[in-house]
């Protein structure tokens, strides 16, 4: 056990219960990536959470539910149910197909910052001319054969270690697996965070890095064990390069 463990162990049961906020999860993920002991402890709590539902009363559903289920699985997949931020996710992910780009970029940026970080929006607005888009860059993440229908966009501030990843079309994973974002520079991969997707395959992840995100050459997303890995171990599902790296 190292000194970090003392601050983390109190939160491990809540991690297993899935009730931590994004900041706490990120902090723990960073720690778990290099702490076998805490990872093992989380697995023990996961096993508890996995059995707690057995203590709920068993109640037989109405017999008609089975017919409704059969009709539903025989029917074509229903349109996706609207999720919080889903429209925004689609805006960003579908950005390359939209025009005019400048107008959409401004709109997306305004929406993005309006819902996530007013302070940074204020900084952008007051930092220079126009929309402030000169401070922002985008990296489009393209699917691999492991997730052919997926797409993603990483929006980041050129001079800061902060950004937002939006993905869609990724398959939902088993509870023991998570997607992990990798920030890549000269072959070195640094974890950019962990996330799971909704039933509709969508997710947003706030990305924080000690270095400006724009300095990284590429970004990738792989499937990893819950809690993350120190380096990619699973299948890559999305990847993309910065323009600087493409040049």
């Amino acid at each position, binding site marked *: 056990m190292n000194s970090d463990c003392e601050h983390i162990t109190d939160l491990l049961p809540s991690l297993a219960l*899935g009730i931590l906020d994004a900041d706490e999860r990120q902090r723990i993920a960073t720690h778990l990536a290099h702490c076998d002991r805490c990872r093992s402890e989380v697995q023990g709590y996961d096993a508890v959470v996995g059995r707690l539902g057995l203590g709920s009363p068993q109640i037989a559903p109405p017999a008609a539910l089975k017919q409704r289920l059969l009709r539903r699985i025989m029917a074509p997949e229903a349109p996706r149910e609207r999720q919080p931020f889903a429209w925004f996710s689609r805006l960003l992910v579908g950005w390359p197909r939209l025009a005019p780009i400048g107008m959409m970029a401004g709109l997306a940026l305004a929406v993005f910052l309006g819902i996530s970080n007013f302070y940074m929006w204020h900084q952008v607005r007051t930092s220079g001319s126009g929309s402030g888009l000169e401070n922002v860059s985008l990296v489009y993440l393209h699917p691999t054969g492991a997730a052919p229908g997926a797409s993603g966009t990483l929006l980041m501030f050129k001079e800061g270690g902060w950004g937002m990843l939006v993905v869609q079309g990724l398959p*939902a994973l088993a509870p023991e697996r998570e997607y992990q974002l990798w920030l890549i520079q000269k072959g070195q991969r640094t974890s950019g965070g962990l996330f799971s997707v909704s039933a509709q395959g969508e997710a947003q992840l706030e990305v924080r890095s000690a270095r400006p995100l724009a300095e990284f050459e590429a970004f990738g997303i792989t499937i990893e064990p819950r809690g993350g890995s120190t380096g990619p171990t699973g299948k890559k599902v999305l990847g993309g390069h910065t323009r600087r790296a493409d040049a």
Partner: protein
Amino acid sequence: MSPSDDATLMHRIARGDERAFDRFYERHKSTVYGLALNMLGEPATAEEATLDVFVQIWRHASEYNARHASPRTWLLAIARNKAIDRLRRGKVRPDLQQPQWADDPLTPLPAPGDLETDVADRDERRRVVRAVRELPEAQRQVLRLAYFQGYSHGQIAEALALPLGTVKTRIRAAMQQLKAALGAT
């Protein structure tokens, strides 16, 4: 239920075997619907959540990985997540009733062909109920809000008028006791 039997069914479901899916549904429908109804309070919403769960099983059975969890654990995780999604989207009134663990998890009649595994299944359910019942009420209270309603530390603290640190301490103590009682390593 036998985890290995369930795992076999999952593999068959992943290949589109409707008979396997039917058997899996019959085995687990009361577990899923019971959990959903307990969490959501409304039968109609619980039915919708149950449908969501089994549709996901049908469409994504190929993503199940036996190395990480039993099919029933995976199923319960999906069921809990679907119910919490609905709670967080505000589709149900949270004050309809307080979700609880069962006093005695008496099960409906087992599905045909599952009689031989039913005794073991009931025994496992009773172990869980006993372990939860042995928690101090103060710990059980915070765990109930965390597990059945997906409340964050802050939400629990606000709901129960407790300091945040007390909430974290009680959750950890409850989970440690359960881990020891259930033999989870």
